[in-house]
């Protein structure tokens, strides 16, 4: 049994972060993907994760969405443990019931959208509110139509995903995630599978969310300019650790670590 005594049952106090990774470790066999990661994200903060492929960026999001289990450490969301639950005054690994109760704080958008192909855009957005949150169809429809309006997809609400372009699908996927009213939104390389000419329509939607809503957001992206524009903080991942983090102007303008400098200059050359 792992010693869980270093991890509090709950985080409390004035400045409790919305998301807190505490010594989180993840490995596949002998390959360590995340190496004792500590990362706090404050409420309303927009944090972007950048770094070379294989550095563990996406794994951070997938663990927060409970798509992957962690090997050790604890993740807290809104002060309460996500990956664990209190039992007899100690934290034990969460069961499905606990995960179900805590997952409602988190929403996620995927690289390949993962819209349900057998449902229309509107039905995709209504599915979670009706089935999981137990809203009436009318309420769910109002909420979904409002969000589809927000992402500029209301005109296509009755189309199936196969009739939509990648950019349109991704915008519907953002609306679908927002319809669950999460406290934390995760964006996993949401523009990587898109044709260059439609990337703007998705980034504009995310830009709008940042400026007008007080959501906590965590984004993995390869688009440095976009990350620089909208983020409160940039984390540069290397080898399963945060190599360097800071305000975009600092990290992009004056990177301190050699690996950060190498990565950023390699990215700039590629553009």
């Amino acid at each position, binding site marked *: 049994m792992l010693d869980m005594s270093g991890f509090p049952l709950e985080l409390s106090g004035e400045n409790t972060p919305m998301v807190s990774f505490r010594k989180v470790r993840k490995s596949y066999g002998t390959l360590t993907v995340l190496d004792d990661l500590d990362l706090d994200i404050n409420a309303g903060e927009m944090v972007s994760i950048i770094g070379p492929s294989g550095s563990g960026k996406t794994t951070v999001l997938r663990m927060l*969405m*409970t798509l992957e289990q962690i090997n050790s450490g604890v993740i807290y969301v809104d002060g309460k443990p996500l990956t664990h639950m209190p039992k007899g005054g100690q934290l034990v690994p969460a069961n499905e019931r606990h995960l179900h109760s805590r997952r409602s704080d988190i929403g996620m958008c*995927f690289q390949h959208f993962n819209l*349900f*192909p*057998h449902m229309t855009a509107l039905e995709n957005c209504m*599915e979670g509110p009706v089935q*999981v949150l137990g809203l009436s169809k009318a309420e769910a429809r109002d909420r979904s139509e409002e969000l589809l309006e927000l992402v500029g997809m209301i005109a296509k609400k009755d189309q199936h995903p196969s009739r939509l372009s990648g950019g349109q699908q991704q915008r519907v996927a953002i609306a679908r995630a927002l319809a669950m009213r999460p406290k934390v939104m995760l964006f996993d390389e949401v523009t990587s599978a898109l044709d260059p000419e439609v990337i703007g329509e998705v980034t504009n939607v995310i830009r709008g969310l940042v400026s007008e809503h007080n959501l906590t957001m965590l984004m993995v992206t390869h688009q440095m300019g976009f990350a620089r524009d909208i983020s409160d903080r940039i984390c540069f991942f290397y080898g399963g650790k945060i190599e360097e983090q800071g305000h975009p102007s600092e990290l992009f303008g004056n990177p301190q670590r050699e690996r950060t400098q190498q990565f950023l200059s390699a990215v700039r050359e590629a553009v």
Partner: protein
Amino acid sequence: MFDWKWEFAWEILPRLVVATGNTLLAAGAGYAIALVLGLFLAIAQRSPSRALTFVVRELVEFIRSTPLLLQIFFVFYVGPQFGIRLSPWMSGMIAIGLHYACYLSEVYRGGIDSVPKGQWEAAIALNMTTLQKYCRVIIPQAIPSALSGMGNYLVGIFKDTPMLSVIGVAELIHTANAIGSEHYRFLEPYTMVGILFLAISLPAAGLIRLMEGRVRRKMGLK
């Protein structure tokens, strides 16, 4: 045609039509059993219990690799040895239903496996329960890709019903055998049975293909 007697053919037609009804009934009932039982066999193989998965997997393999004819005999004759007397119809439905349930469980499994991993993940991201995941997201998408297999086995079960004749179910071949031994004429009854099978299975296969396309379109899957 050689020695073909139309008069005799007309005379035996009513009996063959009645037998066709029995054949269709047997195929329909057997298929209904197989559809439901197959779903249980498929889901059991996805259970977290390793032991259950293993036992069901081996059972399915065993039934799939041994002859249906032998299984029909087994069900019909082994019961009485232990004091359980089953009618020919009952035994036949158990044997053919179980046999095809194994085939259908493979079709269901294939359908479920064909749903991309991202769909499971999206369902988790929407915080769905296991039941909701299956009912709302996975099964609706598994059905279109399972449909062609399900259709093929409907026609398959229909073509395997003649084996039920060996335990006395009065389907087409059983009736043709009876007519043959009463009149010492085999040309007409066996040929007519063949034509009846063709007349049903060919349009059925076409209809199933049509329906498949319609379901796919209706679900927005191209």
